[in-house]
């Protein structure tokens, strides 16, 4: 049980947090032929765009209503209208996903009203879905923007279905949280396919931002879930929601379509995956495939081999609530102790994080708590702290701009958990200090002998 505190500082130093609108935009990027659009000044878009380009190393579709000072004061209807028309003409998307920003929220632009007006004035745009999400920068964080956007898409794009409608037994909805990578989604799909189940994933970054060479040029998203597939989600037999943040979206789905859901607060670790596999076996009525059985056995072996290295290690983690939850739970199960936990926004899970304290704060706070730790886990911006502290640094979360393969970092399922164990254990092993001639020197020769002798075992 953790005490949840909020930093009392006026000045955020080395932010951990990223803004809500870009979480929203990322969710839209998991929809096929979509153009995400920020209602704000062009800098709001440019910063988000550059961040994603550096993380995914892909071209990123993201547009702006390019609000000027004057337009901001007078209201942005013309800009929203113009932007939609321009995008419809140039990129020809099936859906435009609009997220507000700090600028337009401060002014109080009524975007819902604008969109009604645009619909009235432009029947020629009827074939394009327009989804709007309110995401002021000065409130909440990245994963909130993602979660709100998915909920909004469920409300607006999924066809309503009566609760007793016939269901397709082999179709499962998956609502992944913002902390799942394209690689995680691929892994999940693979697991479901083992049971003969088809995964319909909203949003599906595995098709759009998994880093592939596309067959043709496209100015919108390269792949992802199509509008038709979203509309038909009501005919699935079950919904899997991954991460606490997805609870509202899963509830919205159930309310709209009667599809029951199961929420997994994480999918990294042995026991949670046992629950997933049991559920899938039950839903599909099929035996657990041999492949999965072997993967489980491999994970158990990895845990056995790995626990020597994890035991007693002190860990500092900076991540959004659901990722913090996943990592802290899992690494505690491996025998390590979470001594520093910093996150970005409120979540009902924070109190249960296995640490004395969870701080809603920044990387300066994390750096202070990571002193003397054996491992720092956070996104790439932790690199300066890790360097100063001279401790191993595992990059996880968005942004990861100074390493390749961010999209394929996979930590879900038996296999993902196994790989994570190996990666981290190897970092611990690489950090092990070779004994030196003076490691076991007598007390008069060195003042640190007590520590070093202990460390060297």
């Amino acid at each position, binding site marked *: 049980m953790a005490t949840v505190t909020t930093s009392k500082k006026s*000045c955020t130093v*080395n932010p951990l947090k990223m803004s809500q609108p870009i979480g929203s935009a990322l969710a839209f990027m998991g929809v096929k032929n979509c153009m995400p659009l920020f209602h704000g000044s062009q800098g709001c878009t440019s910063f988000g765009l*550059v961040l994603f380009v550096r993380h995914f190393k892909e071209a990123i579709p993201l547009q702006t209503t390019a609000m*000027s000072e004057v337009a901001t004061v007078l209201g942005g209807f013309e800009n929203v209208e113009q932007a939609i028309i321009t995008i419809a003409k140039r990129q020809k998307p099936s859906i435009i996903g609009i997220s507000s920003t*700090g600028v337009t929220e401060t002014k109080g632009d009524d975007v819902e009203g604008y969109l009604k007006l645009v619909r009235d004035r432009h029947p020629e745009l009827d074939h394009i879905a327009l989804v709007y999400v309110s995401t*002021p920068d000065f409130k909440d964080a990245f994963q909130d923007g993602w979660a709100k956007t998915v909920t909004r898409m469920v409300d607006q794009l999924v066809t309503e279905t009566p609760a007793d409608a016939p269901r397709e037994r082999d179709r499962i909805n998956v609502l992944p949280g913002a902390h799942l990578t394209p690689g995680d989604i691929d892994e999940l799909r693979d697991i479901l396919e083992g049971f003969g189940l088809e995964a319909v994933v909203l949003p599906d970054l595995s098709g759009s931002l998994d880093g592939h060479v596309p067959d043709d*040029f496209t100015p919108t998203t390269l792949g992802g879930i199509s509008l038709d597939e979203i509309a038909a989600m009501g005919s699935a037999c079950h919904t899997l929601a991954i991460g606490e943040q997805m609870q509202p979206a899963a509830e919205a789905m159930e309310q709209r379509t009667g599809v029951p859901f199961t929420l997994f607060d994480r999918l990294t670790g042995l026991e949670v995956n046992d629950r997933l596999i049991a559920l899938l076996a039950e839903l599909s009525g099929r035996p657990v495939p041999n492949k999965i059985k072997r993967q489980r056995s491999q994970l158990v072996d990895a845990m056995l081999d790995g626990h020597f290295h994890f035991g007693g290690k002190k860990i500092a983690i900076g991540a959004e609530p659901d990722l913090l939850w996943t990592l802290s739970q899992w690494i505690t199960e491996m025998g390590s102790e979470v001594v520093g936990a910093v996150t970005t926004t409120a979540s009902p899970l924070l109190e249960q994080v296995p640490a004395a304290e969870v701080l809603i704060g920044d990387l300066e706070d994390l750096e202070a708590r990571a002193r003397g730790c054996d491992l720092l886990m956070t996104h790439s911006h932790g690199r300066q702290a890790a360097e100063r502290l001279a401790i191993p640094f595992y990059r996880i979360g968005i942004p990861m701009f100074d390493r390749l393969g961010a999209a394929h970092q996979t930590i879900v399922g038996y296999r993902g958990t196994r790989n994570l164990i190996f990666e981290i254990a190897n970092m611990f092993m690489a950090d092990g200090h070779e004994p030196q001639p003076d490691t076991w020197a007598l007390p008069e020769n060195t003042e640190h002998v007590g520590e070093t002798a202990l460390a060297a075992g």
Partner: protein
Amino acid sequence: MSSLSSKVQEVFNEPGCGKNQGKSEKERKKGCTKQLQPGGAAGGCAFDGAKIALQPVTDVAHLVHGPIACEGNSWDNRGSKSSGSNLWRTSFTTDINETDVVFGGEKRLYKSVKEIIDKYDPPAVFVYQTCVPAMIGDDIEAVCKAASKKFGKPVIPINSPGFVGPKNLGNKLAGEAILDHVIGTEEPEYTTPYDINIIGEYNLSGELWQVKPLLDELGIRILCCISGDAKYHDLASSHRAKAAMMVCSKSMINIARKMEERYDIPFFEGSFYGIEDTSEALREIARLLIERGAPAELMDRTDALIAREEARAWAGIEHYKQRLAGKKVLLITGGVKSWSVVAALQEAGLEVVGTSVKKSTKEDKERIKEIMGEDAHMIDDMSPREMYKLLKDAKADIMLSGGRSQFIALKAKMPWLDINQERHHAYMGYVGMVALVKEIDKALSNPVWQQVRLRAPWEEQTWEEVADAAIAAEAAALAADPARKAEKRRATTVCQCAGVARGTIEDAIVAGGLTTVEAVSEQTQAGTGCGSCIGKLDKILQTQDHWNPEAVAAAAQSQQAA
């Protein structure tokens, strides 16, 4: 905000700026009221520009007053290098919340400055304004003044909220801020007749250090580089330099010009990209210093150093020159690099087949023309497929561009080299030129290109064949159907800023009998933004007999009849 809008006006009246000089009185008055195209705009905002311009000042705390988006989404993303403090890489933001938006964020800002001074004790704090606090009326100038008085430290307001305009405007507003509040506020420990400023150089990838040894050898001291690897004290005492070199042609012209006006520091515009440009720049520095009283023998030493270093660079390039001869480079970049890189590449025997002039000023373009001849194939705004087509038609062997277009090149499976700010290699001075050529050779000769272009065993066609077929089909369809061809021609956007299609311009010319670019601009708004399409407008006017043969013939007839 009245002081901000007058600052913006001032920047737009900048007499040293070629672009603004080219504008009429009326146009200049309009300043940046030009509306960016909603849904069709890309690029950073004025805050971004201001931050980019000043962030390389290494020992200063850069505090961003705004919601998390402005700083949280963008920090530590520049490759400037520091020889001293790394405080500039520590990110500070007030991360204002809903309560601040309602009750005002000035108090939080003041407290933030205090916390920074208590914890980090920097020589100065730079406070950057953003859109939301500007909207709710936070007066950062007043807060900075109060904090400065209270804490006895310079707290400098950089008033450049995102929505006042594009990145380039932000560069200049940042320049104004340091002219007003920083430059001339301290004195150097000593001065020499060899003190210069370098303006508009950000020391990306440590490039400045490729040139600094040359200056060191000549005894020339960089009093301050604005702003790469600068310390606050250097910046504050930079008004004692004898001469200045302005490196980036757009971003900081106002600093160079106003320092000439206020402190009598003559400047020239030059480049350290390319061998000849570097030599030229060194000679120019020596010339200006001698004019300001340095001994004339400086020029002899400069010439000797140039001769020695040029020979060394040519020897370094010689090895690659043969391998690269006849190879064609497609250059897609903006601003200063367009012309400086063109010169550099030609020195290595490469042929430049195109360059984008998206962000280049009129002067830049003139220079490109001068270097490449009148036939320069300038590409304003290439679509990905056009880009592929150009590369594919064997017109180009390699593409050089900034970070964002790389994905098109890589997906088109084309050798590509990054030459914009996010790049990891340094290409300045003589050694940098050799490094650039080496990198091009490395990219071109990498066997991976043959590998990745192989067809998968289960595919009937390669991806390129599919694209080629689509391009060919499109061309054939257009050729067979003059109406569609005309339609496509008319649909092309000529003016990106105002979003004016060619058809609108043609119609206005025909309907109004327009004969001048000014008249076209007045009628259609085309060319009223950045002005980079003026040449195109002129060409449309000149070639009316091509796209509107009937009208021209009729006009000729009626003239004869009269």
